[in-house]
């Protein structure tokens, strides 16, 4: 066990944090579990599990609809979580947080409700080479429907975006910039502040895909100045099936509803329907109430641990892993941007990542292998897949040592 201090001198105790995650205390294939697949999904702390359990045991009812006490409690739990999530991202008000099924749905909401009505043939959406499929395909769908065109900012061999090209591609026809904040495949932390400054000067709104950033670093949407920010709870120690879109109120108000149904309306007749106010007009139907409760508990947990502390701790783990793996002959690191978070992607000589993954699993080390829903990134490097180890706040330096030792055994086995 090691403890680490960040620049402010706060101490972070990963071993103590680990005790809040009961799932980590188990053996797989007779070995202690070393969970390094956090970019895929994180494990859930007791605080989240218990909040959801308590909700179903004590408070469960439909929200915004009934006059009885349970419904009041459920509504309070749901809207209280929205307020805490708004505070977590420093939104101006909770109405700027729209609940979605996850980051993917949040991006799709912007694509279909913000972009599609505005796009004319020849208009452009600016993306980058390192986008996750969920920040490519929604734009292709609306581009097909409107005749708009996708422009792609290139990157270099280290996995760093070409900012000169970004500035050049940001043109008079650009309707929206949509950029991954932290690359899930490479770990690159993109220069979003610089991008925001250029986009603001050009008067172009920006959506940040924060799925891999929100769990690893403080995110302040006002300080970033972004127009939209998308995230998934399950990568932030919360439950699956719930996420959020932050949107500036003016933009959200300008957008038509995406799905119709109950709770998103003010009045309905067969002749005419008045929509509810933001954010409700985007939340048709009975939502994932327990999921929102769990999401709220997750951001409380993250705030309690401290995002600065988490960033410092995980940064140290990433440095350790990058250095130790990089020192092994035959290991190729994929993505070597100076600014990275949470993720180390690599290849073990000629051994296929799938074989590496099976081998590591037998040693108790859980990683992801494959193309990480980022096929254009794999194509860029001329590879089909990588092994990806990704860190969470409960990982320790002993976990990194276990990974490195297992990778060395893979090399011996397939020598």
């Amino acid at each position: 066990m090691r403890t680490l201090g960040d620049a402010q001198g706060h101490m972070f105790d990963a071993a103590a944090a680990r005790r809040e995650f009961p799932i980590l205390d188990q053996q797989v294939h007779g070995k202690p579990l070393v969970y390094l697949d956090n970019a895929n999904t994180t494990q859930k702390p007791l605080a989240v599990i218990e909040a959801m359990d308590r909700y179903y045991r004590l408070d469960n009812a439909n929200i915004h609809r009934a006059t009885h006490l349970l419904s009041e409690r459920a509504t309070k739990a749901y809207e209280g979580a929205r307020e805490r999530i708004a505070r977590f991202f420093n939104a101006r008000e909770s109405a700027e947080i729209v609940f979605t099924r996850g980051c993917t749905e949040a991006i799709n909401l912007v694509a279909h409700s913000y972009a599609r009505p505005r796009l004319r043939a020849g208009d452009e959406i600016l993306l980058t080479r390192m986008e996750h499929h969920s920040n490519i395909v929604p734009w292709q769908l609306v581009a097909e429907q409107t005749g708009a065109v996708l422009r792609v900012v290139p990157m270099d061999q280290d996995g760093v975006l070409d900012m000169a090209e970004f500035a050049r591609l940001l043109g008079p026809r650009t309707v929206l910039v949509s950029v991954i904040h932290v690359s899930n495949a490479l770990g690159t932390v993109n220069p979003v502040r610089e991008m925001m400054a250029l986009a603001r000067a050009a008067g172009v709104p920006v959506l940040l895909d924060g799925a891999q950033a929100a769990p690893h670093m403080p995110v302040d949407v006002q300080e970033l100045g972004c127009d939209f920010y998308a995230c998934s709870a399950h990568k932030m120690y919360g439950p699956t099936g719930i996420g959020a879109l932050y949107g500036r109120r003016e933009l959200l108000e300008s957008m038509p509803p995406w799905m119709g149904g109950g709770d998103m309306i003010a009045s309905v007749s067969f002749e005419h329907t008045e929509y509810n106010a933001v954010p409700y007009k985007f939340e048709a139907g009975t939502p994932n109430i327990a999921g929102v409760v769990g999401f709220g508990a997750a951001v409380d947990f993250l705030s309690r641990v401290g995002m600065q502390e988490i960033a410092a701790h995980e940064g140290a783990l990433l440095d350790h892993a990058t250095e130790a793996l990089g020192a092994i002959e035959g290991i190729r690191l994929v993505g070597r941007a100076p600014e990275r978070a949470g993720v180390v992607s690599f290849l073990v000589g000629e051994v296929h990542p799938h074989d590496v993954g099976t081998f590591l699993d037998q040693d108790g080390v859980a990683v992801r292998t494959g193309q990480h829903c980022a096929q254009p990134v794999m194509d860029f490097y001329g590879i089909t897949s990588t092994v990806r180890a990704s860190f969470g706040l409960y990982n320790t330096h002993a976990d990194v040592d276990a990974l490195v030792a297992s990778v060395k055994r893979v090399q011996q086995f397939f020598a």
Partner: protein
Amino acid sequence: MDLRDLYQEVILDHNKRPRNFGVVEGGSQAAGHNPMCGDRVSVSVRMADGRVAEARFTGSGCAISKASASMMTEVVTGRTSEDVRILFTTFQDMVTGKSEADDEKVGKLVVLAGVSEYPSRVKCAMLAWHALQAAIDGAGTTVTTE
């Protein structure tokens, strides 16, 4: 379960030195794709008198998918398309654990029986077989494991 049961020497050998790697000129060809890991394998066959006269494969994949493809091209050569269809099912039943490994039925493919202990790897072992079946059927399209 020991990893040596999955990665038997024969498998590691076929992975390093795949047999029948290449394309049958003028043969019927079909590709298999595993979108999960990005693996691709293409199988081409030449049929003569209702039998597989020649089968070859190309592509990139893990040790299991490469060894499975390599051994498959060896064992199907000389068999009728009906035989291949039966072997496909027998092999699939073995790697999915539906039936016991029986070397009288599957011959040397029995070394891939260990796959049944690793459900996530079944697709790797089956990829080339799906492509082969499509090539024999003359479908000529990309099949996926999904």
